[in-house]
C-alpha cells in the first residue's frame, strides 16, 4: 500500500464518529493488516467494582480494526460492513492500560472478507480478547460484472 493510500485510510478511520468518541488511533495500516489503539477511559468501564473496561468497548475496537484490515487489503475494496463477528474474552484488561487491537484480513473473495483479530493491553503476550468475523466487500461497479 502506498503512503498516500495509507494516509487516506488513516484519515477515513479517524473520521468515524464513534471511533473518535473512543479516541481510537491508527498505529499501523496496510496490506490487509491494521493496528488500532484506544486509551483507557473511566467512561468505558463495564464493571464498577474492578474498574475494568467494558467488553462492549473492546468489541467496538475489534470491529473497527477488522473493518480497517478489509479496507486496506491489496484487492482494494471500496467499502465494507460487518456480517458477523465472534469475540472470545480471555481475561479482564488491566485498568489504566491502553488497549491495542491488531486485525488481519487473511482471505477475500469477490464479495466476502475473512478477518482474525486480537486485542491486547500492555502485556502483549497475553491477549485480552480474540475475534473472528466475516465482512462484506464492496467493489467498484465495473469490477462486479
Amino acid at each position, binding site marked *: 500500500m502506498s503512503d498516500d493510500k495509507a494516509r487516506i485510510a488513516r484519515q477515513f478511520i479517524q*473520521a*468515524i*464518529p*464513534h*471511533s*473518535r*468518541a473512543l479516541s481510537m488511533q491508527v498505529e499501523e495500516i496496510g496490506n490487509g493488516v491494521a493496528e488500532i489503539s484506544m486509551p483507557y477511559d*473511566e*467512561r*468505558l*468501564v*463495564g*464493571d*464498577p*467494582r474492578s474498574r475494568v*473496561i*467494558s*467488553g*462492549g*468497548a473492546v*468489541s*467496538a*475496537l*475489534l*470491529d*473497527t480494526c477488522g*473493518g480497517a484490515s478489509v479496507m486496506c487489503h491489496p484487492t482494494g475494496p471500496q467499502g465494507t*460492513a*460487518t*456480517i*458477523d*463477528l*465472534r*469475540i*472470545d*474474552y480471555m481475561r*479482564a484488561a488491566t485498568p489504566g492500560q491502553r488497549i491495542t487491537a491488531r486485525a488481519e484480513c487473511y482471505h477475500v473473495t469477490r464479495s466476502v472478507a475473512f478477518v482474525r483479530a486480537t486485542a491486547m493491553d500492555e502485556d502483549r503476550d497475553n491477549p485480552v480478547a480474540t475475534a473472528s468475523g466475516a465482512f462484506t466487500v464492496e467493489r467498484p461497479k465495473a469490477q462486479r460484472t
Partner: protein
Amino acid sequence: MTRRAPEPVQVIKQRRDAALSALVRGVPYMQFLGIEFERRGDELTAILPYDDKLIGNPLLPALHGGVTAAFLEATAIIGLSWALIWDDMESGVIDPRGLTPETLPRLPKTIDFTVDYLRPGLPRDAYARARVNRSGRRYASVHVEGWQDNRARLFAQATGHFLMPSRDD
C-alpha cells in the same frame, strides 16, 4: 389459613424500578452509550436513543457495528443479572434502596459473544430484548434480538455465553 395482604402496587413498582436503575446506573459504559431500560413486570426492553457519536459509517449513515455489539451485550448482561436478582429482590434478601455500585451483586462475565448483523443500523433509536436460554450455576447462554422500526425486522441478533458471578463473592 391466614393470607398476607398483597403489597401495595406502588411499593412493588418502586422496589423493582430502584433495583433496575441501580443495576444500569452502576455501569459507566452504559451511561456513555445512553442505554436505558423499560420494564413491564419482569420483562425488560433495552433502548439505545440515537446520538451522532454512535455512527460508524458517516456516508450511509449507519450505526457503528461495535455500538450494536455493545448494545446487545449490555442487554444480555442486564437481562441475565435481572433474572438472577429477581427472587432475592422480591423476597427482600436484597434491599434495592441501599444498592450502590459497591453493594450491587457482581455482574456476569462475558465468555464469548457472537453478533449477526442482519441489516445496517439506521440513524434512529434501537431496541433489544434478551432471552436467557440456559442459566446454570456457573454458565449461562443468552440470546438477544435488536430491532428499530419494526419488531419483526431485526437489524441484529446475538448469542453469548457468560460466567456467573459466584454467590459468596
